[in-house]
């Protein structure tokens, strides 16, 4: 990676990674205090994947993500306040309180949707890519999914279809080395996720997902290929799930074998940037921004129960 890329993107990466960290941290706090409804799956430790990929995208592109997708959304530019409002089930949430943590979406800003069904959003991204191709919009689509999701049939079907039809899509496997409580090596046979790309005749690359520069470089290549009509790629970003599968799991999960922690992606980037003071300044700003968003989201009204019957059909 040339220094100019780091110069160009580094401060924004650091900002968004800190935003993610504080955003997710605030959810952990809320959970701890019993103020969260539903289940949350946090992305702390995985910030570099989101920042590295999304900074390679254009406004007209679309992403689909998973139950663990707040970081992708923030990196894609969604606003913390309506995100938090959604996660708190408020009327001002992006989805009017109907979606919650696992279903935040903002189509206008390029986040078609999260998904509660593991593997469920992979074909959807292909479809978004094909729509862009067909409509000539110049856009591409990115499917984010976990290592666990790569065992689903939809992964295989979609990669085959995408390769056949040279879809402008990038398939990003965020390999945090766990699906729930099962380590990846007990769920994925063979040499690994990236290696499966060869079976479809498309590029498959594994990168260090803690290193935003490495992620971004790989993303740029895949995104450019997709946009230029060169077809889809599979990108495996090996990363670390710091907080376990979901908040509150200690109620039943006990101490399962956690994979060794990788490096902290924020520390890594900070060191690479070598700009004393930048981190502290951004930390202050982002901590404040998230705190304000949270306060506003908490103060927002609950949805009118009558709205439960709306939005089923056009």
């Amino acid at each position, binding site marked *: 990676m040339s220094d100019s890329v780091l110069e160009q993107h580094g401060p924004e990466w650091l900002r968004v990674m800190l935003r993610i960290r504080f955003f997710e941290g605030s959810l952990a706090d809320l959970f701890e205090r019993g103020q969260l409804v539903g289940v949350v799956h946090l992305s702390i430790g995985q910030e570099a994947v989101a920042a590295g990929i999304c900074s390679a995208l254009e406004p007209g592109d679309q992403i689909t993500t998973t139950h663990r997708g707040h970081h992708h959304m923030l990196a894609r530019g969604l606003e913390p306040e309506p995100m938090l409002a959604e996660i708190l089930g408020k009327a001002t949430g992006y*989805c009017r309180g109907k979606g919650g943590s696992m279903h935040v*979406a903002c189509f*206008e800003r390029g986040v078609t949707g999260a998904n509660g069904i593991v593997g469920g959003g992979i074909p959807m991204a292909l479809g978004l890519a094909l729509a862009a191709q067909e409509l000539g919009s110049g856009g591409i689509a990115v499917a984010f999914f976990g290592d666990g999701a790569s065992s689903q049939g939809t992964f*295989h079907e979609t990669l085959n279809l995408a390769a056949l039809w040279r879809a402008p899509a990038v398939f990003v496997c965020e390999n945090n080395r766990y699906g729930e409580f099962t380590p990846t090596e007990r769920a994925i046979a063979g040499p690994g996720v990236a290696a499966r790309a060869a079976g479809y005749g498309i590029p498959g690359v594994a990168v260090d997902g803690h290193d935003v520069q490495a992620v971004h470089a790989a993303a740029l290549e895949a995104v450019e290929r997709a946009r230029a009509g060169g077809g889809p790629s599979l990108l495996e970003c090996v990363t670390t799930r710091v907080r376990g599968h979901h908040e509150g799991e200690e109620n039943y999960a006990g101490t399962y074998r956690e994979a060794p922690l990788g490096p902290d992606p924020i520390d890594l980037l900070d060191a690479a940037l070598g700009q004393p003071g930048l981190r502290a300044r951004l930390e202050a700003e982002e901590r404040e921004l998230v705190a304000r968003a949270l306060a506003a989201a908490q103060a927002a009204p609950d949805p009118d129960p009558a709205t439960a019957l709306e*939005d089923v*059909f056009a």
Partner: protein
Amino acid sequence: MNGSPSGANRLAPAIADAIAQEMRSDPRVLVWGEDVTIGVMGPTRGLAAEFGESRVRDCPISEAGFVGAAVGAAIGGLRPVVDIMFSSFAYVAFDQLVNQAGRMRYMTGGQLSVPLVVIGSAGAAGANAAQHSEVPPALFLNGGGLRVAFPSTPHQAFWLTRAAIRSDDPVIVLHHPALAAARGPVGAEPLELGQAEVGPEGDDVTILAVGLMAHRARSAAGKLAAEGIAAEVVDVCSLSPMPWETILASVRKTGRVVVVDEARLTCSVASELAAGVAEWAFGDLRAPVRRLAVPDVPIPFAPGLEAAVIPDEDAIARVVRETVGA
């Protein structure tokens, strides 16, 4: 009423013609499915010749993948029509239909539309056995978030397919393989999702039926007329929205109801119709609502076995007579 909007006078070609007309007027409409360029099942036959093999696109056998992709494409601004062949192949794509297509608008608080049409055959057509003879509308209706139509005539097929493609909701269009060649004109009066067709009319008893069962109900009604029993047939060709007003109006008039269904009885459309009638027109009922459906068995292969489990004209007439006599 002016002239017919379609030259098609058989059911499957009427679907194909509706698709073709929509493709001509709306470039966002495209067709995906296995061997749709050849049009194995009928509803896409002839389209590739006019629109080319990119817009009418053959898919590898991966229904969850391409139905899911069609969901994404619909969200992304296209209007995909997927021919899934036999509707039971939808079972391998069930999550993508029910849990994705049927939920996306709702889960996103109304941000997303999924203008997707999935066409599939439904019903037994002589020795196709258990995995190719399914009549699954109840699964889609209870699954939720999906519109469902099941035309029994070329007229219904043309207009409901057109309405399905123009709808901003995901719509499942079922067609019965035994009716693919059923003849009839396409009338000029449009039929919309949510409408039923009534005919013949009658005062003695209402028969509610869909697809092949609607055909058989009409035959049975003809036979019964000769015996002096005036049966009114409501062809519930649209199942979501369910045309309750038309159904209940007929029931209020006749006070007697027989529901006929080619699906297994338990949790079927027949049960839904019977329950709704019994709840909302209880005071008008002069006899119990009788349901005639497939017993809770898979469809067997041998023609004699298949015929033994599917309601026919005689069985319908018999139950109607019992109901009128009750």
